[in-house]
């Protein structure tokens, strides 16, 4: 980045400017590391401590006796394999449903343009205006007894998967990306005899990889971080997500185990973030800047 910012380069080039710049830089890096990594460090090291060492005043900065066994104990006692497996199952299912149904819908609204399509799009975007908190109660009642099909989806993964499709923001992002694909490209495919499905698969999807990446990450992370909805719809301890499961067991396990469990629970999304950082940043800013 060589864009000109608030402080002029001439000022920064002076010895005093250089000194101030580096002082501020070191201070900010130290402060940010302390504020944002400090709690994570505390979580990981506390998970390694014995209960006695955990309770000590003042606290030890580095565990005197590391007990990696805490992590194995936490894994077993809180049944983290099951909680993580459940959450992964819900997240991947939600991802699959969103990728298939939301991509198809956005493609239809953008390129196939059915009659009444704009009304459908408007009705979808309308849901963005309704505060999510307002809809929780009627949505929960709907899941208890889905009209017409008369099914109770409580404790079933469908209670996570199907509502996750109603992500108007993802449909909007996808549609806007599809809108930018030139018409001629699709016409060429059609002249070659490609059906709309074939065009979607062989022309649209390959160029849409960036936006598909963004949508996928948000779909997975959304399910992984959700709390209220899975708490309401998946009360069975055997079916809970990682958030709800750890929360409901938090009071009944020792602190070092709980912290070890939290550290393990934090790993998957942190790993996703470190790997896909670039996509996440571009997705975040895509929604707000243009348009």
């Amino acid at each position: 980045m060589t864009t000109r910012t608030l402080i002029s380069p001439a000022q920064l080039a002076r010895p005093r400017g250089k000194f101030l710049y580096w002082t501020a830089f070191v201070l900010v890096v130290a402060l940010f590391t302390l504020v944002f990594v400090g709690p994570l460090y505390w979580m990981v090291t506390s998970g390694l401590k014995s209960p006695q060492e955990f309770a000590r005043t003042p606290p030890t900065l580095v565990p005197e006796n590391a007990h990696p066994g805490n992590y194995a104990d936490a894994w077993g006692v809180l049944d983290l394999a099951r909680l993580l497996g459940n959450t992964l199952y819900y997240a991947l299912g939600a991802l699959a449903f969103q990728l298939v149904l939301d991509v198809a819908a956005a493609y239809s609204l953008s390129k196939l343009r059915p009659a009444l399509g704009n009304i459908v799009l408007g009705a979808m975007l309308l849901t963005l205006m309704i505060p999510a908190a307002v809809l929780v109660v009627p949505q929960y009642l709907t899941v208890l007894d889905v009209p017409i099909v008369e099914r109770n989806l409580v404790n079933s993964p469908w209670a996570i998967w199907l509502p996750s499709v109603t992500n108007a923001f993802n449909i909007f992002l996808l549609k806007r990306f599809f809108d930018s694909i030139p018409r001629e490209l699709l016409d060429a495919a059609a002249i070659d005899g490609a059906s709309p499905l074939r065009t979607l698969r062989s022309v649209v999807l390959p160029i849409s990889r960036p936006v598909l990446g963004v949508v996928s990450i948000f779909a997975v992370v959304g399910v992984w971080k959700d709390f209220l909805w899975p708490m309401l719809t998946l009360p069975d301890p055997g079916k809970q997500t990682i958030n709800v499961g750890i929360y409901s067991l938090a009071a009944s396990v020792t602190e070092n185990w709980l912290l070890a469990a939290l550290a393990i629970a934090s790993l998957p999304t942190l790993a996703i973030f470190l790997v896909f950082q670039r996509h996440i940043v571009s997705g975040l800013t895509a929604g707000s800047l243009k348009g």
Partner: protein
Amino acid sequence: MSAPVLAERQPPPSAPAAPAPRSPRDRAAFRQALRRNLTAHGFLIGAVLCFSFFSWYPMVREFFLAFEKRENGATVWAGWSNFTYIFNDPAFWQAWRNTLLFTGLALLLGFAVPFVVALVLNEFRHGRGYLRLLVYLPVMLPPVASVLLFKYFYDPGYGLFNRVLGAVGLPEQQWLQSTDTAMLSVVIAATWMNMGGATLIYLAALQGVPGEQYEAAELDGAGILRKIWHVTIPQTRLVLSLMLLMQIIATTQVFVEPFLLTGGAGPEGATLTVVQLIYQYAFTFNNYGSAAALGLVLLVLLAAFSAAYVRLSRASEE
């Protein structure tokens, strides 16, 4: 319920349908349009069904719920009684006071801090990727992890915060357990958890500020603060005003942070927010009617606020 679904599913009355197709050519065009529309709706139908069941129908149901109540196992029309019930509930007014307090504090911290952080990060020529990563780190944690961490830090007995305060000679605080500081403690935790998104959006907006304007301001002898006031803020104004609106809407609906930090209500109801109260009505007392009524009040107030905000910010632009 089924009405909107069926309406979407019907082959649309497209233009060629009006005059009955006569020539074979017209008929072919009609058939082609019909097929095109059927395909298009075929692609759309899955999402439309999901929206119908889990978004549009609940939206409609919310309105009905607010005017219904359960009596002897049957649902009966309740008129405005759900609304008079919540208006007479002292918790209603307390929840609104708390929510306003949370929104106010969250704006002081949650709106200002990310902007200042973005301003500072944007000045650095080094390590920006690292700092950006740090700020966004908490956003990627499962909320139960961040919240329970803060619960440990806030513990008045052995919590880290009081030890640090004690070490530098400041008075220890009761944090979540005192009515005075409970809400502020929730806001601090919520800001730590959520500021990453706003910071990255501001950083991207700052990249768009034209450098010549800073140069022009310098020629006029402007210092850093005046450059921020006269160049940076006007140039990023659209993003700032949009984020302010979105943040007010989001913080008014705060739920997870107080729910996990204080179990919901907190000391003497100090952290009982509007959405906490909706949750309590619905899932503690099984009083869905009052929950829906309170939801409607929240919806109407937020909608009115958003409309006024958009109108005002448009007026001030002209």
